[in-house]
């Protein structure tokens, strides 16, 4: 249906997020990672995805949220980008959801910080909001990382 879209959903710090299902390459359980010293903290490490080296980005940190509780292993949502696959580390994976386009709304003006850049908008579901992540921005660190605060 033209006015319905499919999203791959997941949870980060209690929030319910979605990514366009076509952007998601695969979802895999936690993988052992090689840390990258001196890298931005958002980069949790590198994983070997069948011979391909994939950067894992911690979505909590990317969204300026506190780190998750110790001992709980995040899940890799591997999204395809122009620069190859990138993994987004999320707390827990949800379903693939079909939502009506008319339930979509722009993010509120009061949304600040990195989230403002990264959240495309929200779908008003019956009992909760589904926040749609802008994956291109989420994986781009240099351009949209700390935001325009650094500009003179």
């Amino acid at each position, binding site marked *: 249906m033209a006015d319905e879209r499919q999203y791959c959903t997941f949870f980060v710090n209690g929030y319910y997020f979605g990514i366009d299902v076509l952007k998601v390459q695969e979802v895999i359980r936690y993988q*052992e*990672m*090689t*840390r*990258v*010293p*001196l*890298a*931005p903290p*958002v*980069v949790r*490490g*590198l*994983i*070997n995805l069948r*011979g*391909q*080296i*994939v*950067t894992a*980005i911690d979505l909590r940190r990317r969204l300026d949220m506190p780190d998750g509780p110790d001992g709980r292993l995040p899940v890799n949502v591997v999204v395809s980008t122009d*620069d*190859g696959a*990138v993994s987004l580390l999320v707390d827990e994976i949800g379903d693939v959801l079909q939502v009506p386009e008319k339930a979509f709304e722009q993010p509120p003006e009061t949304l600040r910080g990195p989230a403002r850049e990264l959240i495309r908008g929200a779908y008003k579901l019956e009992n909760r909001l589904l926040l749609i992540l802008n994956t291109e921005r989420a*994986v*781009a*660190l*240099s351009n949209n990382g700390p935001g325009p605060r650094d500009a003179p």
Partner: protein
Amino acid sequence: MKDIVREFLLETNENLGQLDLDLVTLEREPGDREILARVFRTLHTIKGTAGFLGLAKLQALSHAGENLLGRLRAGELLFDAEIATALLAVVDAIRKILAAIETTEQEGDGDYSSVVQSLERLTRSSGTVSKLQPASTPTVDFIPRVSREAVPESVPVVIGPTRAWVPEPTLPPLPSAPVPVESREPTEVRAPAVADTSIRVDVGLLDKLMNLVGELVLARNQIVQFGNSQEDRTFLGTLQRLNTLTTELQAGVMKTRMQPVGNVWGKFPRLVRDLAAACGKQVRIDMDGQETELDKTIIEAVRDPLTHMVRNAVDHGIESPAERAARGKPTEGRLLLHAFHEGGKVVIEISDDGAGIDPIRVRDKAVRTGLVAPEQAARMSDRDLVNLVFLPGFSTADRVTQFSGRGVGMDVVRTNIEKIGGAVDIESQPGRGTTVRMKIPLTLAIIPALTVTAGGDRYAIPQVSLVELVRLEGEQVRKGIEQVHGAPVYRLRGNLLPLVYLDRELGVATDRGDDREIVNIIVLQADDRQFGLIVDDIHDTEEIVVKPLQKQLKGVTAFAAATIMGDGKVALILDVLGIAQRAGVVADSRERALSENPTAAAALAGDCQTVLLCAGRDGGRMAIPLAQVARLEEFPRSAVERVGGQDVVQYRGEILPLIHLSRAMRRAGSAGKANGGPRRVSPAPASDSIQVVVHANRDRQVGLVVGHILDIAEETIAARSQPSRPGVLFTAVVQNRVTEFLDIEHLVRSAAVAPTATIGD
């Protein structure tokens, strides 16, 4: 796009490169009928296909070109510069049309009528003089015809050197020659050899194959690791076989990606011709070793630097014909490209016999623009001076031309070459010419590397940067490494080797402190410096598959790429230069040439510096940049002798003048009035020896007597203030203590001013 169109584009693009080359050659050797025939054939083919595909403009262009060539081939016209220019214009026009077709599938709206007109004019022009000839018509006579005479019968297919029209009497001067010039066609037998034994393969496929072989190498490494714990003979035998096969396959696939460097050079004759014409110069280009092969990615990476340097050579290197004649050189300048293998690398040399680079001019320019301090420049050898042109923002060209001389370029050349693990160097003899020499690795895809551990993680260090390994145990650790806090040094055969702890540099140090029983030092070459990298453990050297880092990590200069190890885990490949810069071993923007001028001091203050900390007699802390320290020595007080009012010691068969820092600084302050003061050579209380920092100044060495050596620190100097007294560059906080940064050059100079001193003239 239709397959037929795509194939046409591919093939034609390839042929155009050859056309460029051939036309430039023809201009030089107008009598070469073989090349003329080839040019004719190529244009004819393009015309034919263009007609078939309904590409009208292309057809008209190639037709006009073919007409002109027809007359040339018939000997009615002589190939000259004007014709060459016109035909090259055709090549350019065809290129434009092809580019348009590739993007839009249309011929584009370019207007090439002027090109066609000039061709027609040329075709008609001097044609009048020989119109009477019963020459072959400009239309094509393309029936393969075996030449009737002179072909030895034993040669079945006539190609290459066996062709028979050997002593073509050099083409007769046109006007007076009603000679029945050979209307004979060159034997139009197409060489079947190349076409039948080679096929076109998509580069993407090759890349994929390379990746797969990379995977295979990894899997092999994994199995070999597993095999180490196995006893089964059959298994081990098979493993051995797998090992060999993988290596062979890897070599084979890597070979498919190899391309002759001539692929890049191919466009240079044309480039040089056009550029020389534009600058009013005469340049002849010669190439040697075109067949030397390099990996495709490397070829791509050297394309721009090479082009840049060829441009430079023509634009700035080679003089105008008049200048050359005045210097007694042939008016035609010579440019030589030479590629060859040397020590597992490929060397590409670009030599010209032009004006060369005048080291004095380079020095003056570098000093004037503040890139190098005058004192520093005075000490540099001519060769080092010439290599200053690689500094960012350097250009000796007095005028900026359309082609070069904007002061960007050589530093970019160097950066690009270093990026692929290569090196570049200039040698020049004023008046005689310049040679730029690039050393580049054969391939980047799979490289030998040393794996090490630091902070619990594995890292790979490319073998190319590796100089040697030093292992210190037990007592040697405590004695060998002179360190107190942060940055230690090791005396490697008499030279101070700065040491860098990899784990600390990466911020992954564990809390086990410095009481290591065994210290592994990896001596690495970064730029023109060596430094020792201390790691926790050294493992094997193995072939690793280089995988680029994604853009999220591009800012992390400490790592060049990543790889997958035998156990399937990812390991980072160190960028040796990046680590060195981070650690301050190699100054970032090559500002290691800095000295006492204010901008240099500012640069010094902003960057991470390795400095030697010592205490003055009054206990004040002073810092000397480690770069200015040649050695640290300790002499018994009794060794100090006094000659002509100057303290000296005998040192390594030389007489080493001593400067007492505290005294020299006073002297520097009072402009020689204090004149040395009372003789108090007792800087270090309760000690029978003196601590001397040996500083090399020009060809001489000077010993700076300090109270005692405190430490070597490596810090980003943030807070700093104005100099507290003469002889001091500035004051800054190092290791939480206020420290004076000494202006060594100034001190040495002012010591030399003193009437009693004889040092440093």
